């Protein structure tokens, strides 16, 4: 155990194990999949037509939004050039499917069907349709393991979208809630606030939704408020996720260079969390 966790003696062996476990995950999820296939095969025509219509409507709305987004991102780029900071690179994403979830209730790990042969590397961020999902911790050749946000060993630097207050969002082992740590009672964090990734840890790109604040409890006897948030990503329901394969993890000169101009809009009220 120590050879593995501290010394990392099984570096490449772990990737092999990740690949070797895929058939097991595939086989064990077979009954559920068969039920899904049967459901699709016997779905009524009306249901399919209704679903098709709903999807068309959604695609139209999304396309309209994308038009505005193109204009906005062009404007954003121009403004960034004026500010002489690096342009935000467009991230390359890789669509992948979740093959299995680790059965261990103390460990929140998902197995996805893309690996190093598709350019997945440990440390890359993973998102789903509605928010940040987790990060890659092991990349096999054709599969990799993703640590979910809600794992008790995972933390994300984030900020409140409304006012830019910086916080740390930590998993607590439950799949439907996250803890927001080191929130002083004077900090402006309220119920319903959207927390987005701040990109400060250099691991996750900034601007992706992480969680929505559910409750803020102030106990006068405690130095920090107890803040509980609900993850934006559907950690327990998503079937498809996107791996952000670009920018590469680790010290990337393109990201590290402009140390003077932090893109995060931080209000003067924001306090640095005490160590």
């Amino acid at each position, binding site marked *: *155990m120590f050879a593995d966790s501290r010394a990392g003696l099984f570096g490449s062996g772990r990737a092999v194990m990740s690949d070797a*476990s895929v058939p*097991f995950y595939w086989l064990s*999820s077979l009954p*559920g999949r068969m039920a899904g296939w049967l459901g699709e095969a016997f779905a009524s025509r009306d249901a399919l037509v209704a679903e098709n219509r709903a999807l068309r409507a959604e695609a139209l709305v999304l396309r309209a939004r994308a038009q505005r987004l193109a204009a906005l991102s062009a404007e954003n780029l121009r403004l960034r050039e004026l500010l002489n900071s690096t342009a935000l690179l467009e991230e390359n994403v890789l669509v992948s499917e979740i093959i299995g979830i680790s*059965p261990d*209730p*103390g460990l929140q*790990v998902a197995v996805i069907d893309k690996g190093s042969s598709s350019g997945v590397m440990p440390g890359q961020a993973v998102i789903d349709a509605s928010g940040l999902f987790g990060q890659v911790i092991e990349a096999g050749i054709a599969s990799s*393991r993703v640590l979910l946000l809600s794992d008790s060993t995972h933390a994300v630097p984030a900020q409140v979208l409304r006012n830019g207050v910086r916080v740390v969002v930590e998993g607590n082992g439950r799949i439907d809630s996250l803890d927001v740590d080191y929130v002083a009672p004077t900090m402006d964090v309220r119920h319903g606030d959207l927390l987005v990734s701040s990109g400060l840890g250099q691991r996750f790109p900034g601007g992706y939704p992480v969680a929505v604040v559910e409750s803020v409890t102030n106990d006068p006897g405690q130095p920090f408020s107890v803040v509980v948030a609900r993850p934006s990503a559907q950690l327990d329901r998503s079937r498809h996720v996107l791996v952000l394969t670009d920018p590469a993890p680790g010290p990337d000169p393109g990201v590290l260079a402009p140390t003077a101009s932090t893109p995060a809009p931080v209000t003067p009220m924001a306090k640095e969390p005490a160590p």
Partner: protein
Amino acid sequence: MRPGSSLMLWTSTAVALLLLLMPLPGWMAPARPDWLSLLVFYWLLRDPVNAGMGFAWLAGLAADALCGGMLGPRALALSVMAYVVWVLRAQILHHSLPQQMVTVFVLSALAQVLLRWAQGFTGHAAMGVELLMGSLTAAFCWPLIGMWLGTRGRMENWHASA
């Protein structure tokens, strides 16, 4: 030992690993029976010559590799459990089925506590009482497996070990 027994041993191990990975609905997942403990418990009673602590260790290691995370906590927990079963084997075989269920619960709980303790090394948060849920359901699954041991294994084993 009959010639088919070794095949049975590895088939049942593969089945236990598959059951371990089987997706369950969210509310049911914490109550997933501790299949690995049942497997080790059964085989140590049935065939301690071929399935000893080494078998428990290998099965635990395979489960660790499948689950991700640190390599070894399950191997450790199951080996310790296998040792206890091995020492108490003669007594357990003479127990009635309800008594065996209690034994399964206690030993599986021991394995679970050891497993969570070992996972604590890498900074995982401690779990509450729900960590014993799997042991409880495993105890209730034991009659299904234990009956089989009773009809096919017990006498044979008793002669083998005597």
